[in-house]
């Protein structure tokens, strides 16, 4: 439609008017996004850092500047140390499982020829459910008296193995991990499956001619080609683990005691439940630094990969 017009030179109605129109267009196009994001994400985040230097306790009293006192308190805070330990424990399991467990599942799913959609659909399904739904299902499975797991154990004569999965300090960490693994397995597997589809068929054909078995196909072709996603998934799982929060709220609320308190839950516990906003902000600052380091490492890795490509 514009071919005829393209041949005639565009009119130049003066530079000033042009740049004014440009600026106006920028405001219309970008303005709402910048205003909302600056007002309700950046501003509160910045305020959070300011609060981390105060003793603000919540809604009534005025905050006082206390310098780095919150951060000094943090160093000696036993609950914080416990929260860091539990978060690292969960994060380790999450990273290992979502990097390698979902890799194995994806390679197996990739080999299916029949009922492909159905089988993949089953494994992905829990990811479309609310975490509250996952939590309720797992609470039911793990319940000591009426839970399905203990009931099955009792029925097949292994009643002695029945545990209070959610209340026993020895088991509760694995209970939470099981719920997370169940909920998000499909997501991480899907990222691998997408990558597996980009592997050229010629590589498999060549391997077939060479008489390579499934294990050497996996080790020599699939694994090297999947390395980018191994990287992406491990970083995503790491961020996922550090941010672990909602899953704790809807299951154990940090209990028993403060056995399952994660760093993110500790911030919520301090800030919303115990009115120690200043201190809570200091903890969230530490968490933010950890996430920044992960993001920086990720960017560095992507840069290096682009160079080698």
């Amino acid at each position, binding site marked *: *439609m*514009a*071919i005829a017009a393209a041949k005639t030179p565009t009119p130049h109605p003066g530079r000033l008017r042009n740049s004014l*129109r*440009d600026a106006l*267009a*920028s405001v*219309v*196009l*970008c303005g*709402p996004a*910048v205003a*909302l*994001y600056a007002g*309700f*994400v950046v501003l*509160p*985040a910045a*305020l*959070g850092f300011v*609060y981390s230097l105060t003793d603000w306790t919540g809604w009534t009293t005025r905050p006082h500047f206390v310098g780095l006192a919150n951060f000094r308190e943090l160093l000696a805070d036993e609950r914080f140390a416990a929260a860091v330990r539990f978060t690292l424990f969960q994060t380790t399991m999450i990273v290992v499982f979502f990097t390698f467990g979902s890799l194995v599942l994806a390679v197996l*799913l990739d080999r*299916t*020829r029949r*009922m492909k*959609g159905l*089988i*993949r*659909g*089953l494994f*992905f*399904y829990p990811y*479309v*459910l*609310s975490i509250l*739904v996952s939590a*309720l*299902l797992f609470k*039911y499975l793990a319940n000591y008296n*009426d839970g*399905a797991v203990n009931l099955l154990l009792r029925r097949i004569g292994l009643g002695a193995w029945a545990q209070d999965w959610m209340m026993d300090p020895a088991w509760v960490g694995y209970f939470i991990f099981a719920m997370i693994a169940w909920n998000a*397995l499909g*997501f991480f597997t*899907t*990222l691998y499956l997408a990558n597996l589809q980009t592997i050229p068929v010629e590589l498999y054909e060549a391997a077939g001619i060479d008489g390579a078995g*499934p*294990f050497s196909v996996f080790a020599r072709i699939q694994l090297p080609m999947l390395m980018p996603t191994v990287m*992406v998934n491990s970083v995503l799982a790491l*961020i996922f683990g550090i941010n672990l929060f*909602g899953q704790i*709220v809807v299951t154990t609320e940090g209990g028993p005691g403060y056995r399952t308190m994660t760093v993110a839950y500790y*911030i919520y516990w301090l800030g*919303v439940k115990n009115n120690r906003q200043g201190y*809570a*902000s200091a903890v*969230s600052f530490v*968490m*933010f630094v950890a*996430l920044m380091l992960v*993001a920086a490492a990720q960017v560095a890795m992507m840069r290096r990969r682009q160079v080698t490509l």
Partner: protein
Amino acid sequence: MSGRGRTRRQPWPVLEIALLLAGLIFVAPCVLALLNAFKTNTEIIMDPLAMPRSPRWDNFAFIFQGMKLARPMVNSLLMCAAVIGSLVTIGPMAAWSIVRRRMATGRLLRMFFLAGLIVPFQIVMVPLLKEFRLIGIEFTYLALLLHYVSWGLPMCIFIYSAFLTAIPRELEEAAAIDGCGQVMTFWRIVFPLLTPCTATIVIFWGLWIWNDFMQAFIIMGPSKGQLVFVQLWRFLNDQYVRNWNHIFAGVVVLSAPVTALYVLMQRRFVAGLAAGAVK
């Protein structure tokens, strides 16, 4: 394992059957919930695996009368519509402006929005509540809407930007030469090309807001928020006696719309949710 090596050439459905069984066991908790939503509480405790003797439809009646879930369902749907509507107008405009136009501030804006992808909710949570109180909209649907939209924008812009870089710019340039203003060019020419991306955004945020419990619970405060999962949670915490049949009925009804859409358009769902990989 070694068996598969021998049958590699001519596919024999051992792998398929094994994976299908594993998948069925994987979703067994959901099947159990569906089964037990039709039983009485005693039946569930006696034998969770048995078929219901006679389907108890009153479990479902209860979630509307006892749990009062009808109103929250409407609220959640309206909230989904409002958030998605805002995101797919504001987001792509900003993304296009940042990606295409030679703005001096383009790179800076890009970094500005990208930074939002790694901010955890805990950091903004408490100051945000204070801010809403200062404006006078504390614990309102408007506050929650503002939060959802602002919180979703960085990823929305990121997804649209990635998509935009794959679209040739000749069409837009032609429109500009035709004397179309930039805002008009965007809505007339560019936005229709972004439809697949918009579909992804609709699925991703529709699902997220319908399923969200945490953020609605915190932003809407202790008593006022009435979105579906907040209401379900509130009901469960009020009850002294846990009635599994009611819990299962609630879980089934609240997951039904999502499940139905998932079954109907599994491909789109998986693609849409995998797009969230940047977060």
